[in-house]
């Protein structure tokens, strides 16, 4: 399929990825490795197999279907040898309980658009639209431009949820096709950033300055993560940096949540963060106050 990419999920009635009622498209593949990532199924560019042990009834259908012999039933229980798995998805297609799920469906821009256009009435009535998320969707500018063209020809606004760690030429190409950027700023200190995400943030902050200068409309999103940046010193540094951006708009503080933890188990990944309680409401309020003191239009999302 020419021009197709792996899409992991098309989430309709999505209310937290930009204004109004939206459909969010999750593309596979990311070049960061954030310890708290809540979409770990989108880290790899290729499809991955999720195995939800709790849903498995050990029926054995997958054993027959798997060409790699990755599934076995032992003593009435399902044993999955992930090292043998090539994520061909044959087991998932015979699994009737939802225990096995292949994440990543090769989808052309046209096929994608046919899904996106279904909720156009809701976008129009609510000021919503389509959001590309991931993974890192800015790694796939050609695909997004193609899909965005189709959407915008039907007056559907397009937003891009990006972590910023891509060559600026990608953004330069995307700029004319994107109505709103949702831009993550995770911390200000480059070494802290490198330790928790695998890369330092010089390119990310540079790109943000350049986007600001280029006149892009953007919302800044700051995930507030215990152990990582949930301290007032780091929040203060982020706020000070953001205040230097002349065209800044809304800044959203996103308190850490644990909803993604179950996915790690299903993927056979180790969770990079010890199970943490979300930051306290008091801390979030104090951080919010700090942002507002810097003259920033901030909210807790």
């Amino acid at each position: 399929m020419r021009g197709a990419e792996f899409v992991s999920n098309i989430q309709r009635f999505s209310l937290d990825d930009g204004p109004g009622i939206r459909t969010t498209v999750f593309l596979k593949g990311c070049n960061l490795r954030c310890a708290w990532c809540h979409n770990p199924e989108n880290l790899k560019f290729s499809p991955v197999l999720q195995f939800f042990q709790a849903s498995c009834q050990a029926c054995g259908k997958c054993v027959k279907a798997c060409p790699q012999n990755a599934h076995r039933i032992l003593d009435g229980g399902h044993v999955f040898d992930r090292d043998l798995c090539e994520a061909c998805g044959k087991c998932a297609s015979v699994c009737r309980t939802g225990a096995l799920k292949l994440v990543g469906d090769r989808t052309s821009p046209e096929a994608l658009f046919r899904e996106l256009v279904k909720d156009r009435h809701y976008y129009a009535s609510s000021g919503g639209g389509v959001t590309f998320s991931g993974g890192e969707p800015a790694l796939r500018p050609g695909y997004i431009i193609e899909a965005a063209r189709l959407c915008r020809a039907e007056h559907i606004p397009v937003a891009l949820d990006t972590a910023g760690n891509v060559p600026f030429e990608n953004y330069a190409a995307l700029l004319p096709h994107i109505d709103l950027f949702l831009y993550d700023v995770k911390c200000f200190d480059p070494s802290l950033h490198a330790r928790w995400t695998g890369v330092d943030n010089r390119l990310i902050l540079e790109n943000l300055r350049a986007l600001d200068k280029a006149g892009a409309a953007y919302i800044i999103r700051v995930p507030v993560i215990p152990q990582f940046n949930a301290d007032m010193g780091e929040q203060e540094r982020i706020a000070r940096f953001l205040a230097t951006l002349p065209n800044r708009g809304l800044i959203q503080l996103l308190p850490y949540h644990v909803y993604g933890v179950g996915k790690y188990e299903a993927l056979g990944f180790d969770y990079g963060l010890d199970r943490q309680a979300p930051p306290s409401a008091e801390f979030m309020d104090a951080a919010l106050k700090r942002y507002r003191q810097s003259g920033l239009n901030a909210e807790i999302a």
Partner: protein
Amino acid sequence: MAAQKLEVSDRVKAILDHRHDDHDRSQIPTRRPIYEAAFENYAEEGRDIRIAMGFKRFLAEKKILIREHDILAGFAYRYTYKPSFPFNLPDDYDPLYRPPAGIDTCQEAEDAIVANGFAADSVEAGEMRAFAKCVSKWFYKHWETGHIIPGYEMLINTGFGGLANEARQRLAEADESRKPALRAMLICLEAASGYILRYADFARDLAEKTETPAYKAHLVEMEASLRHIAHGPARTFFEAVQLIWLAHEMLYAESFPASFSFGRMDQYLYPFYVNDLKSGKLTDAEAADILDALWIKFGITLHGYQNITIGGLNERGEYASNELTIMMLRSSRKTLFDQPLLCLRYHDSMPDDVWEESVELLKTGIGLPAIFIDEFCIRAKKRMGHSAEDAANYALVGCVEMACPGKEYAKTEALRINTGKILEIMFFNGKSNCLGSTGIIGNAVDQSLKLTDDHGEDYVYPLFTGYRIDAIDDFRAMLDWYKEELKAHLAYAMTSINRLDSALPKCYPTPFLSVLIEGCIQNGKDVTAGGAKYNNSGVNLCGLPNVADSLAAIQKLVFTDKRYTLKDFQDAMKADYVGYEDMLDAIEHDCPKFGNDVSAVDDIMAELVAAAESVVNGFGNPRGGHWQMGLYSVEDHVKMGINTGALPDGKRKGEALASAVSPVQGKDVNGPTAAVNSLLKTDLSAATNGMVLDIKFSPSFFDKTSHHRALRMLIQAYAQQGGGEIQFNVVDRETLLDAQIHPERHKDLVVRVSGFSAYFTSLIRETQDEIIKRTEHAGV
């Protein structure tokens, strides 16, 4: 942001604290002997007069009660009187719960055969008996009386005395044919005044005995008000509310429980509220106390389906909400009872404060308010012959039906059809694999009546076309056959109800209800004889999403993929899919399901509704009205499902059918916009008797105010695309599961089922399971 319960005043708290004191089983059987004695004493009179005399005597003798802390006079009893209509109601049910009650349609049919002058062995008599048998097996459902919005607004502005003057005048001018009905109405009007005077005397006596000065003062005022409104129109907000309650109480003395609703209460009480505020007779706090007291009365009677409509466009096309709109939303949040059912009329111009207050109530999870789209509802009423002015003044009755307050004998629950069972019997030449339970009456399942041998009876249900399943060789033929059967069943059942209705004025007129419906006094006709201005009847379709999914599965697996034959389906259904698990898998995973925005199945739904409409529209009734079609199921999708065998959509024997036109439980996996889109492919303007779309959210959905706005935008887009009604359940799955295990811990859990709210623990297990299964659109 968890839902916040609002506190009531100390005065109202006293009423709340004593609300369980009035259990009194002894009153349940009191009505019938009094009526029967009156029938005997007036044996020479016609049926109208005899029923009116029964009403008069019952009002003179029945128990009344005021407690010293009461704000409103009126006896909020927790039981139902045994009526004179053919009706199954045990004498000794526990008044803590709603009674297991139902119409004895077999007896009703026998009465109607005589009243219509059909010979006992005539074709018509045979058809009526077969119809009654189908009703007893939940193939059809039939409910009699009620589902009416009495002219409470007219009453508070005219008074029983004013209505009596008019009735006297009409009687003086009337020809002989109209005199009995008018005399009966006059007897009822005098009885009503007399009943209120009984309360006035009670208040006087209680005031003398009461020692608390505040209570005493109020009882003295109450007595004066009662003496006035016994005949006169209401002068104050208090008197208006008081008069409405007592008239309501009296209606339940005349008829057995069915929906009596209140119309646009925030609108018609508003002038009284404003006047009293201006003149200093009333404060906001006092007005709230009066409403709270009224809400408690609604709540503890346990009568179902008492609707109050708030908001909505006025005759000038402006959104008319006011202080009382907000106050009523708060009364529901303070009491958290499952009555009254609060219905919010929605228009894009609705102010934000009404929406925010509504969200606060939605957050509590009691399923209120239900949202009704003004454009849709007004258009539906116009289509059914209402004037522009009356259509704009519509309000809700029963569950979700639109009616004209005080001018319409609506009968919206006259008939419901189990569309799933039609499909089932098509596979078996009229026989069902589910004998089912005939032991379900009202909300209760009598386990002792549950029959165990499901193949033990060879009852053959009517099929009308003469086709057989083994002769069907393409999908179009299958779909067309189903549509033909559906249309024929509709025509047969509507004809049967018309025959029952023709007998009503001769057998069971309701003269007191007639005085509260405009037109009856003027026309000198009982409401059952067509005295009202509007006289439509409702037929409601149950299980359509199962039929659409079933037909889509047949199309895919039999005719497109050729993996199975219709004979395979027949065998699997007969075996209730035991031994056919692979087929069940194929149905579940490889076939499109209604509710996911997939045209292959959504278009079948649209075609089914259009077929039904083609026969319902234009079908007349004996009162000069027409039939109108509803796409809602109350709780009957559960009861009808219990009585339906396995279906080609994978429904197992005894499982619930889909609620209303909502997707089959748990089958909608693409979120609320997809569910709404699926439904909107059907021309919903066919649903002139109302419709329901259930959407369920977990409480966390409401944590963000941006979500409140998004929900309103969802409603707005739904409205713009032709939607009619939408309702929200806000309960998490864990809570519901826990309530099944520990009902004692969740006595206060109110959920919206399908068109009504009820205590979760009072529902039958099958209904509980069905609510849990409904897809939860979690916080996304």
